[in-house]
């Protein structure tokens, strides 16, 4: 049996000489997928298009072409900032980050170094879904808006590299955390929560496989509570699992290096998912001098009250608020947490409540029955053929005694297979629960007659046989008998 680590205990790397604490900060690049066009051009951003089919004259940096900010991209970044309780800077500015590379046609990336659009904010993570006391706030330092670069393809020709500019100019939000995380689990929880919030807000689809979200992972180690160590930055990590692996691997590597008498170089590293390890890409000495300066093609961004109000007014209910609301109507803390973790699930559940389902019963049913079915069928909530309205109808049939919980499970399976409405299934298949005491009494009498020996045992004190009689009666009535009446009548007859 594996001993599970106590979630409350701090994460420590046990070295040869001491215990070490890991310090993690994440820079998450989230593509603004809410708009179909790029940050400074009208070109499309659809994933998977043929190379160089989504490139405007601006993206290709043709002579004399000028960037024009896409208002919707700015709006989405502001909404994201608001969702992270961050300071929105009414005055911000774009800077150029200058370097030469074949995937960067302008010879500079338009970004925001000196005056970012969004300032400080925070994200609350739960280290244990079932335990509110495991909450921890992770600081957000800033969010700035910038252009993505294109892509080099090295496998198309034996001696040449090809350039695909489709991604060039795509709008990214760079969400920079404070170095507030102390374990792989915290880094994972932060990234999942951030992803969930982006998806709630709708600014980014959070699709890490398609590259719409990726993280630069900053890791250092120190003696617990001591001075911060030198950090390394592992670039472009594209899954939650890999981010956690990078933290784990880097922390161990750094501890081994330091304890072996070495020092940590401030450097940029790459993660190799196949090896589960990082390797050095370039050291600080080889770092570019990016010669940042304000982009003279663009005026500063100035946001007025009306714009900010519209942004705030358009925000949906966010996971934290939603969880509290669910708990307020009697849903367990665990269920509330599960139901709010993903925006699609929360939307589905809200629709279920909207359709009249009782909250607590509905939450239990979704978490136990619906998720169970989805797991078995390998489906996500988006694929389920059951509408929240149909599910509410099913729950109502149980609540008003039309069918029993047992029959409800059968009806649900039939719904999944046929897509038919629950009331129709109950009607067509004659699954209605019966409360006819005459019929129930008749079946009980038969069961007691056949099991006279068990009745004698029961009467001599073997009380636990009561459940057996209930089961036999229900079985005889194909599950359709009202269980409370069966209980009541059995108790009367058995004395």
């Amino acid at each position, binding site marked *: 049996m594996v001993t599970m680590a106590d979630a409350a205990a701090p994460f420590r790397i046990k070295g040869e000489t001491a215990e070490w604490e890991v310090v993690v900060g994440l820079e998450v690049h989230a593509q603004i997928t809410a708009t179909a066009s790029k940050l400074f051009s009208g070109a499309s951003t659809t994933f998977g298009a043929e190379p160089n089919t989504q490139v405007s004259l601006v993206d290709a940096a043709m*002579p004399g072409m000028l960037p024009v900010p896409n208002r919707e991209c700015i709006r989405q970044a502001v909404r994201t900032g608001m969702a992270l309780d961050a300071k929105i800077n009414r005055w911000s500015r774009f800077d150029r980050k200058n370097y*030469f590379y074949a995937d960067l046609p302008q010879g500079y990336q338009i970004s925001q170094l000196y005056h970012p659009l969004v300032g400080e904010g925070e994200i609350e993570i739960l280290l244990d879904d079932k335990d509110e006391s495991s909450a921890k706030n992770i600081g957000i330092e800033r969010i700035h808006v910038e252009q993505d670069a294109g892509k080099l393809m090295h496998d198309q020709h034996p001696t040449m590299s090809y*350039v695909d500019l489709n991604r060039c100019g795509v709008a990214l939000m760079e969400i920079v955390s404070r170095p507030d995380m102390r374990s792989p689990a915290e880094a994972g929880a932060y990234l999942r929560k951030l992803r969930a919030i982006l998806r709630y807000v709708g600014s980014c689809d959070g699709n890490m496989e398609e590259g719409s979200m990726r993280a630069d992972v900053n890791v250092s180690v120190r003696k617990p509570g001591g001075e911060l160590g030198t950090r390394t930055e592992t670039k472009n990590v594209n899954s939650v699992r890999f981010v956690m692996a990078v933290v784990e691997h880097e922390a161990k590597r750094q501890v081994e290096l330091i304890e072996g008498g070495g020092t940590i170089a401030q450097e940029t590293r790459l993660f190799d998912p196949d090896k589960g390890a990082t390797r050095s890409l370039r050291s600080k000495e080889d770092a570019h001098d990016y010669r940042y300066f304000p982009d003279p093609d663009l005026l500063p961004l100035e946001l007025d009250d009306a714009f900010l109000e519209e942004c705030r007014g358009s925000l949906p209910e966010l996971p934290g608020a939603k969880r509290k609301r669910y708990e307020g109507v009697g849903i367990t803390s665990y269920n509330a947490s599960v139901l709010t973790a993903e925006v699609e699930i929360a939307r589905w559940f809200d629709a279920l409540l909207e359709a009249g389902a009782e909250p607590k019963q509905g939450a239990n049913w979704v978490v136990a029955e619906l998720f169970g079915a989805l797991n078995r069928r390998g489906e996500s909530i988006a694929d389920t053929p059951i509408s929240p309205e149909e599910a509410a109808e099913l729950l109502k049939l149980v609540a008003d005694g039309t069918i029993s919980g047992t029959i409800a499970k059968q009806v649900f399976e039939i719904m999944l297979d046929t897509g038919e409405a629950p009331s129709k299934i109950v009607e067509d298949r004659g699954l209605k629960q019966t409360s006819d005491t005459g019929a129930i009494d008749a079946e009980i009498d038969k069961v007691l007659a056949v099991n006279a020996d068990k009745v004698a045992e029961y009467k001599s004190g073997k009380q636990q046989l009561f459940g057996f009689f209930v089961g036999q009666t229900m079985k005889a009535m194909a599950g359709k008998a009202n269980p409370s009446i069966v209980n009541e009548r059995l108790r009367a007859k058995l004395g």
Partner: protein
Amino acid sequence: MTELTSKTIAELRDGFRAGQFSAREIAETYNAAVTAAKLLNAYTVQTPEDALSAAEAADKARGSGDLPALAGIPLGIKDLFATRGVDTTAGSNILKGFRPPYESTVTANLRKAGAGMLGKLNMDEFAMGSSNETSAYGPVISPWRRKGSNVGLTPGGSSGGSAAAVAAHIAPGVTGTDTGGSIRQPAAFVGICGIKPTYGRCSRWGIVSFASSLDQAGPMAKTVRDCAILLEAMAGFDPKDSTSLDLPVPPWETNLSSDLGGKRVGIPTEYRIDGVPGEINDLWDRGIQWLRDAGATPVTISLPHTKYALPTYYIIAPAEASSNLARYDGVRYGLREEGVKTLDDMYSATRAAGFGAEVKRRIMIGTYVLSAGFYDAYFTKAQRVRALIKQDFRQAFEQCDVILTPTAPSAAFGIGETTDPLAMYLNDVFAVPASLAGLPAMSVPGGLDGQGLPLGLHLIGNELDEQTVLNAGLAIEERAGFSSRPEKWW
């Protein structure tokens, strides 16, 4: 028909409308004049068909009575403006043969107004120069010569081809661009008018960038009125340029008036600088008198940060240029040097072969002033000084309505005579402050110096007040009576 080339744009427009000649006649005459003036090296490309097809459209439309402003007028276009399907090289080898699939907003506006294109005009490479000597096509030769001399003179720069074309009557009007005097100094050198409007009046979309925060297009022509006509057609809000001004274009031509009654003309003491020939200061004094005669009151003003303008300009402009020119990397268009091993080698070889010495010098200066450890000392400081220079003008315009100065500290010089880059930069000492402040400014011919070369007077206006600049220019034009023309030697 030769006399057609002596006419102003206003005369051509009115004569064409009155049926005195056809647009085709105008175009053919100019096409022939351009062909006959190859010695000047003013044009890099001729586009006679373009001028003719616009003329045909104008002739067809003449009967309808609903003619656009520039119907029948062929123009020369500085090679910095992207022209669809026509070589657009910014005077550089790195763009040799580049034909854009798009048209700059300014030239598109001119075409919409009915203008045709005679060809593309030679210029200093990427507009970096004050003599047109940095062009990959070789220098433009000014039509002007010193009295009794055959020495080839520069027409100034960077809009040297534009200036020479107007002065030599091989274009009735042209486009120029001005980053730190590139319209005004050449206009002064060849005895024509040229105006740089308020920054943001003309869209920069489709103009090859030199220094984005300073670059501004403007017209050059024989007269102040012609400049007003052309500027009205060129200017206007363009959503494709974030720095474009979202304001209506005033009817500058209609509102032209040389009556300056009630206007105050600022005379900045800081513009009396050592080493400027007496003839230039004398002309300046005559200019003050002319404006007084037109009803204006001269007032002495101070622009205390003037002496820092040139060094400030030579930090900001190269800084922006070093970044703007990074796109010329051999990857997507223009020159590419092959036969190298790595990407970095390809960049180096391409840019070494494609850029001339002055462009390289400015890229290096710009890269230096932006680099870590120097940024604050140079770039940040220059930005602060720029703000102070703007403030100088803001305060000055509380005391005056327009400022009069000389355009350049000398008359045109000989090709090859100025080899020291710093001495060359001094050409723009009077022009640069208005560029840093984004203000409208114009050069108008005032007379000839002792060697028989034109000298210009320079008017700087308040933000968006092109009208007062044009009106003061008109007052000078009327009183200077400048009618000298270079003797034809080409």
